[in-house]
């Protein structure tokens, strides 16, 4: 078995070799600008882009004309929130979102608030990280123009009841944006059934290249309009100017096509592997806690808190396995994961959390190795932990007067 092992597939995914193969001709040989309408080089590029647009649209049950290419999900989120607020400012300026959204949504919403362009309601989530559709309904005011709720969370994998939220949005005539970055290509997404008006997603989370993403913008019932945030040649129906990155778009299209064909079988395989990982670790180690929803979660996500050991020190002992932690020590802010905090997970357990993200190229052999190493390192660090020692002595850690620093 080759080391290191990549188990951080929520951060990015390795590109599928079939995607690279599809992209290669579009760097040197077929280099045309898709906006060049007057010669063969342009036509060739345009054709490739339109094929990709169809492949992408098919995966989410949209029309290819509803796909706007961007540089990635962060740009798509920015374009959706800022574009809607700017376009519909006469109608209202209120946004409803949730506390566990990705920073690309939260920081964009905050930026709009700071500039006085929007007022924002941040809905809390339940202990599993799920948004309650009824909370969305209650938060709606006559100034609400946008609801932005993610499909699935990037840390804990919890899948939101998007269909119910879409129904409420439709009922009230409010636009619904969904950041589906972690879900597209992993679980079935249907923008019609889910009542989604705008949707962000990106290539590199689904075995495609980095640097390309899309914003789905509904064309019919209702026809959604957004103010462009990048002006220039009027590309992408005037919503996002800039020369299209043809090779990346071709790769993104191919990645979507592969997901569309393989998602069902792959989802089953990943869920089985994830369950193996979860059982293997949680059966062997006491005081481990699952973060996120027990069933309504992405098939490839696992997030566990290991009481009495700190996340970064865990990762340090697992150098040959790429993982991520909700520990403050892995972030620049020294604050533990805001997502776990929003679930009501205590700071101590948030510091002790590890996120596992399985992907297309992981194997059971890698999973078994990870289980073995996790057990070793947690046991070693607990032997070194004063908290574990106190807990073993029967001291209630909550009753201790800690000198906070």
């Amino acid at each position, binding site marked *: 078995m080759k080391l290191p092992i990549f188990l951080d597939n929520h951060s990015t995914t390795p590109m599928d070799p079939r995607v690279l193969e599809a992209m290669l001709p579009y760097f040197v040989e077929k280099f045309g600008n898709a906006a060049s309408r007057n010669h063969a080089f342009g036509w060739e590029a345009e054709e490739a882009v339109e094929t990709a647009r169809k492949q992408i649209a098919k995966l989410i049950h949209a029309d290819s004309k509803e796909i706007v290419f961007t540089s990635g999900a962060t740009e798509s989120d920015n374009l959706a929130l800022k574009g809607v607020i700017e376009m519909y400012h006469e109608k209202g300026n209120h946004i409803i979102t949730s506390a566990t959204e990705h920073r690309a949504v939260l920081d964009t919403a905050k930026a709009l608030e700071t500039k006085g362009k929007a007022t924002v309601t941040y809905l809390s989530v339940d202990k599993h990280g799920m948004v309650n559709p009824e909370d969305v309904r209650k938060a709606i005011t006559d100034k609400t123009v946008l609801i932005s709720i993610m499909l699935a969370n990037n840390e804990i994998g919890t899948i939101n009841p998007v269909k119910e939220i879409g129904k409420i949005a439709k009922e009230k005539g409010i636009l619904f944006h969904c950041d589906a970055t972690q879900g597209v290509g992993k679980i079935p997404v249907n923008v019609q059934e889910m009542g989604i008006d705008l949707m962000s997603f990106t290539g590199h989370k689904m075995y495609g290249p980095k640097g390309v993403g899309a914003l789905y913008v509904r064309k019919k019932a209702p026809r959604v309009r957004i103010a462009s945030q990048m002006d220039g040649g009027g590309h992408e129906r005037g919503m996002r100017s800039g020369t299209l990155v043809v090779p990346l778009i071709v790769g993104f299209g191919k990645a979507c096509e592969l997901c569309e064909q393989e998602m069902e079988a792959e989802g089953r395989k990943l869920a089985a592997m994830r369950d193996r990982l979860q059982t293997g670790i949680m059966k062997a180690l006491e005081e481990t806690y699952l973060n996120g929803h027990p069933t309504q979660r992405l098939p490839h996500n696992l997030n566990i808190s290991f009481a009495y050991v700190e996340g970064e020190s865990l990762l*340090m002992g697992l150098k040959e396995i790429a993982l991520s932690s909700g520990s403050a020590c892995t972030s620049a802010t*020294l604050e533990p994961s805001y997502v776990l905090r929003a679930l009501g997970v205590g*700071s101590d357990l948030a510091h002790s959390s590890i996120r596992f993200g399985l992907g297309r190229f992981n194997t059971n052999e890698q999973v078994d190795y990870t289980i073995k190493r996790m057990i070793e390192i947690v046991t070693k660090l607990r032997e*070194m932990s004063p*908290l574990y020692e106190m807990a073993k002595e029967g001291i209630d850690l909550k009753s201790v007067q800690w000198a*906070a620093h």
Partner: protein
Amino acid sequence: MAYSEKVVDHYNNPRNVGSFKKDEKGVGTGMVGAPECGDVMKLQIRVEGDKIVDAKFKTFGCGSAIASSSLATEWLKGKTIDEAQTIKNTDIVQELNLPPVKIHCSVLAEDAIKAALADYKKKAETETK
């Protein structure tokens, strides 16, 4: 973030992990930090005469926190009480090449040393009374 070689060495081979009995004669215990903040250090010294003859630690925290406390126990052994008082967090930062975001780990280690020394002195006073 890359760890310095010395931090990695202390993390992989922590010196003096363990515990003394708190109420044992000559033992001083310092416990600093909080679980909510992501680090708790327990540092203990065993004093004979005015010399620290042994030191032990247990730490809940990141690699740099573990390394800082491991290093502290190494430095404490063989020092007199007065010499131990002079250990500064900046010495730990320098020895372990800690980056700015990890300076708080060294501060915590200094606090733990001070707390252990204070605990020993307090105990010694009551014992002589």
